[in-house]
């Protein structure tokens, strides 16, 4: 296997998973969003979104905090500085791989 394809395996798997990718990409476009907004935006189930957020929080990618709007609790999620850097690095790596894979041509062995 040639280099760009080998490098695909080295993508940040924590971010690469579709559900988590949707969450972190959405969060990278805003300062913070609450659980309900992410739920509607990503189309994930409550359980899945919660599990993904827990994983991202454990890895230090997102920060979760509780707020109260009157008496109603609200879960607000935002990217940490490290998380923002990881998302940026992920997209840059993917863009670079896409360019390199586009240039790649199979080497035909002479018969």
């Amino acid at each position: 296997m040639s280099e760009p394809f080998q490098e695909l395996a080295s993508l940040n798997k924590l971010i690469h998973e579709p559900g988590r990718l949707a969450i972190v990409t959405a969060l990278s476009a805003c300062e913070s969003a609450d659980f309900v907004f992410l739920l509607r935006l990503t189309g994930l189930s409550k359980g899945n979104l919660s599990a993904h957020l827990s994983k991202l929080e454990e890895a230090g990618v997102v920060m979760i905090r509780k707020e109260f709007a009157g008496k109603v609790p609200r879960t607000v999620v935002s990217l940490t500085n490290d998380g923002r850097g990881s998302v940026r690095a992920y997209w840059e790596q993917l863009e670079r791989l896409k360019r390199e894979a586009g240039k790649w041509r199979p080497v035909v062995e002479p018969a």
Partner: protein
Amino acid sequence: MFLIPLLVDTGVVRGGWSWLLVFGCLLAADILSRRIRRWYEGRFGLVRPVGGKGWGPFLSFIGLSLLGFVLIPGLLVRFMGVSTAVFDGDVLSWPFVVLGSVLLGSGFMYRPYLPFNVIAGALLLSLALVPLGDLLGLAGGVHPFNSAARLPVLALGLICHAFTAHATLVRELHQIQLELGDPGAVGNGDTDNESICA
């Protein structure tokens, strides 16, 4: 709220009652806006835009103001022979013609997220362009947007602006969602872990 200045200015409500009416309406508007906001956030969630995105919004504001209040009137007066009284007089309300155009334009630009802005912009524009003072038989034929109703109509403009700001962000995020596909459709195996959203 929109009718209060008219009622007060035209003498329908006078003296201390007018202040009581204004205070009561402000209180009602405050309670109502909090309820609407709570309902909206409960239904659609809350998203906060990235703060301080540089000079872009400020320059856009300056640019639109220069275009609407200086360039277009200047060009119309210079090359189309339009009277300067059109922009300064009371027959039509030029500031609200500009505001209505901006609302209408933003509504089209961010469609389908801003139908409210399209409707409000078109309504504002059409009302600002007709001699409403004459039609309503107001004293001196003064266009109401240039007198009593100026503040309420401006408030309407600001509300529409808030819708625009939010909808722009939502549009951006939905674009991301479209590009990523539907992560909810991916079989990740549902979990019962709802601890953080409890």
